C-alpha cells in the first residue's frame, strides 16, 4: 500500500473501497515505528488509532454517515489540546499535563472522523525554528538527517514529509508552519489572522499566532481549511468567513494577476541557490499570465526585532501561569516561600523559554517600554500600512519562504542573532495578520527550497488559487527515507 498519497486521494480511495481505513492506519503506525527512531517527529502515538480506524470501516460498510476525513491519519503539534491526552508543548514543565478539553480545531476534525495518530515534536512552547529547543530532543530533516527540519512545527512537517501521516496541524507565530514546510518540502499555511480558532492552542503570542495545516498538496490545505476555519464563540478574534469553500474554483489560474516581489527579501543574506529558485518561481508565475514587479517594504528590516519584542512580551505574560501550582510536575511545597518556590519550579523551562521570559519582562518594563515594546508596536503598525498600500497595487506578494537552505543541527543554536534572521521573510505575515503559504519548489544538494506567497487579509481563496497554479509547474523527487 502506498502511503504517499494526498488527503483528497486518501478520501477518494476509501470512498471507492480501494483501501480500508484500518489497513492504511495500521501501515501508517508501522511506518512511524520504522522511521521515527531516526526522525523523531512524534512525542506520543495514539494507541487507539487502529481501533478507531476499524470502527470507521464498519460504519462505511453499514452505510452510516461518515465525516469528510474518512479516518484520515493526522498528526497534531503538541501545543494543541486533545481531551484526555498529553499536551506537553515539548516542555518538561508540562511533561504530565493531560488536557481536560478539546481545542476547537480538534472538535471539528473529530466531527469529520479524522484519526489523530499522534502528537508531534516542536520547539518548547513553539519558541524556535529548528526543533532543537524541544526538551525531548530535536526532530531530523527526512531529506538529510544531519540537517534541521525547521520549526517550531518541525514534527508536523517531518511527519507529513516522511509519510507518517497524511496531514498535520501546526501553529505559526512567526513562520512556525511555513519554515518547516519549506525545509521539509511540504505545503504550509498561515491563514488570515482569525480564520481558524485558537481555542485550545496553548498560548505563546496571542495577537499574531494562528493554527495552520501542513499537507502534501495545496488542494489538501484548501480541504483542511474547509474543515477547521470559521467563527468560534470561544475565540473572540475569529472572523466570519461565511463558510467559504476554498477548494471550489482552486484551478482558475492567475492570468492577469499582479504580483509584487518583496525587494527586502531577495537582497542581503540570501543564499544564491534560494535566490535562483525564487527567480525561477517568478518567471513561472509570469508564464502563467501574472505580471511581476518589485515592491519595497522598508519596515521589513525592523520586522524581526519588532517580532521578538512583541512575542517575548506576550510570552512573558502567558507563561507566568506556569507557577507549578495549577499545572506542572510533582515538586513538594514544603520548605519554600511562595516566590522562591515558583523560581525553583521554573527551572524546568529550557534555556530558550527562560531567555524569552527574561526578555518578556525586560522590554515592556517601566523605563524600557518606550525604547522597545512601544517602538515595536509602531513598527508593526507602519509595516501593516506599507503592506496594505502594496495590496492596493498588487494582488499577491512573493518571496522565498526562508532565505537560507536547511542548515545542520547545532550549526546556529549558539548564535541567537543568526537564528533571528532565518525568520526575516515569514514574520511580516504574522505582524500584519495576512495569509501566507509556503509551496515546495526546488532542491539544492538534496535540500528543499520553498516559495512563499502572501495575500491581503481574507483573500485566502485567491492565495490558494495562486499557490495551486505555481504548484502545478513543479515536479519534485520523493523523500529519500
Amino acid at each position: 500500500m502506498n502511503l504517499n498519497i494526498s488527503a483528497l486521494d486518501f478520501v477518494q480511495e476509501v470512498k471507492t473501497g480501494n483501501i480500508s481505513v484500518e489497513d492504511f492506519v495500521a501501515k501508517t503506525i508501522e511506518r512511524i515505528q520504522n522511521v521515527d527512531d531516526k526522525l523523531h517527529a512524534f512525542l506520543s502515538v495514539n494507541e487507539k488509532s487502529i481501533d478507531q480506524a476499524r470502527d470507521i470501516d464498519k460504519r462505511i460498510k453499514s452505510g452510516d454517515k461518515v465525516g469528510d476525513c474518512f479516518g484520515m491519519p493526522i498528526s497534531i503539534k503538541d501545543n494543541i489540546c486533545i481531551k484526555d491526552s498529553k499536551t506537553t508543548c515539548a516542555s518538561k514543565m508540562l511533561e504530565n499535563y493531560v488536557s481536560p478539553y478539546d481545542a476547537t480545531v480538534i472538535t471539528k476534525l473529530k466531527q469529520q472522523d479524522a484519526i489523530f495518530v499522534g502528537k508531534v515534536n516542536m520547539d518548547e512552547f513553539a519558541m524556535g525554528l529548528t526543533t532543537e529547543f524541544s526538551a525531548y530532543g530535536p526532530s531530523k530533516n527526512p531529506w538529510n538527517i544531519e540537517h534541521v527540519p525547521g520549526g517550531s512545527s518541525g514534527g508536523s512537517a517531518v511527519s507529513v514529509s516522511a509519510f507518517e501521516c497524511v496531514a498535520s496541524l501546526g501553529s505559526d507565530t512567526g513562520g512556525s508552519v511555513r519554515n518547516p514546510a519549506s525545509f521539509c518540502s511540504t505545503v504550509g499555511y498561515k491563514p488570515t489572522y482569525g480564520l481558524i480558532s485558537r481555542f485550545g492552542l496553548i498560548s505563546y503570542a496571542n495577537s499574531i499566532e494562528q493554527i495552520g495545516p501542513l499537507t502534501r498538496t495545496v488542494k489538501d490545505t484548501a480541504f483542511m481549511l474547509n474543515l477547521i476555519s470559521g467563527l468560534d464563540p470561544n475565540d473572540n478574534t475569529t472572523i466570519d468567513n461565511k463558510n467559504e469553500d476554498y477548494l471550489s474554483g482552486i484551478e482558475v489560474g492567475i492570468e492577469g494577476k499582479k504580483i509584487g516581489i518583496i525587494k527586502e527579501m531577495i537582497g542581503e543574506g540570501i543564499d544564491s541557490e534560494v535566490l535562483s529558485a525564487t527567480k525561477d518561481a517568478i518567471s513561472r508565475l509570469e508564464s502563467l499570465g501574472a505580471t511581476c514587479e518589485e515592491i519595497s517594504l522598508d519596515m521589513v528590516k525592523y520586522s524581526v526585532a519588532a517580532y521578538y519584542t512583541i512575542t517575548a512580551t506576550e510570552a512573558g505574560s502567558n507563561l507566568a501561569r506556569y507557577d507549578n501550582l495549577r499545572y506542572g510536575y510533582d515538586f513538594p511545597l514544603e520548605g519554600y516561600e511562595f516566590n522562591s518556590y515558583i523560581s525553583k519550579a521554573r527551572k524546568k523551562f529550557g534555556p530558550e523559554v527562560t531567555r524569552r521570559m527574561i526578555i518578556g519582562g525586560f522590554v515592556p518594563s517601566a523605563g524600557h517600554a518606550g525604547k522597545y515594546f512601544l517602538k515595536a508596536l509602531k513598527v508593526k503598525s507602519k509595516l501593516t500600512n506599507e503592506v496594505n498600500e502594496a495590496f492596493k497595487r498588487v494582488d499577491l506578494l512573493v518571496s522565498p519562504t526562508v532565505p537560507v537552505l536547511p542548515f545542520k543541527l547545532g550549526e546556529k543554536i549558539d548564535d541567537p542573532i543568526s537564528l533571528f534572521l532565518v525568520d526575516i521573510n515569514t514574520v511580516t505575515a504574522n505582524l500584519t495578520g495576512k495569509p501566507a503559504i509556503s509551496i515546495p519548489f526546488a532542491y539544492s544538494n538534496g535540500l528543499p527550497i520553498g516559495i512563499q506567497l502572501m495575500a491581503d487579509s481574507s483573500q485566502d481563496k485567491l492565495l490558494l488559487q495562486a499557490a495551486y497554479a505555481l504548484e502545478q509547474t513543479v515536479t519534485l523527487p520523493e523523500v529519500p527515507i
Partner: protein
Amino acid sequence: MVSEEEIQHVSKLMRIDIDDHKEYVEKVHMMIDYFDILDSAGVESEEISMPEISISDLREDEYIPFNDKLIEKLNHYKGTYVRAPKMSS
C-alpha cells in the same frame, strides 16, 4: 545598551533563577542589543493601531460549570482550593 545587572534584576522580578550566567544573561544581552535596530526605524510619530471588538460582539458573560473533579488533577489541593507555599518565610 543595557547592563547585565539590569537583566539580572528583571529576571528576579520575573521569578526566574539564573545559575548559568553565560547561557542566560549574556545571550539575553546579545538579543536585547539587537533590538537597538528599532531606534533607526524612524517610527516615533507613528500611531499604534489596535484591533477593536465591540462589546456587543463579545460572548455572554455567564458562568458555565466545567468539571468539579478537575481540581483533583492538581498535585497540591485541599477541597476546592489550590494549595500554594506560604507567602513569607
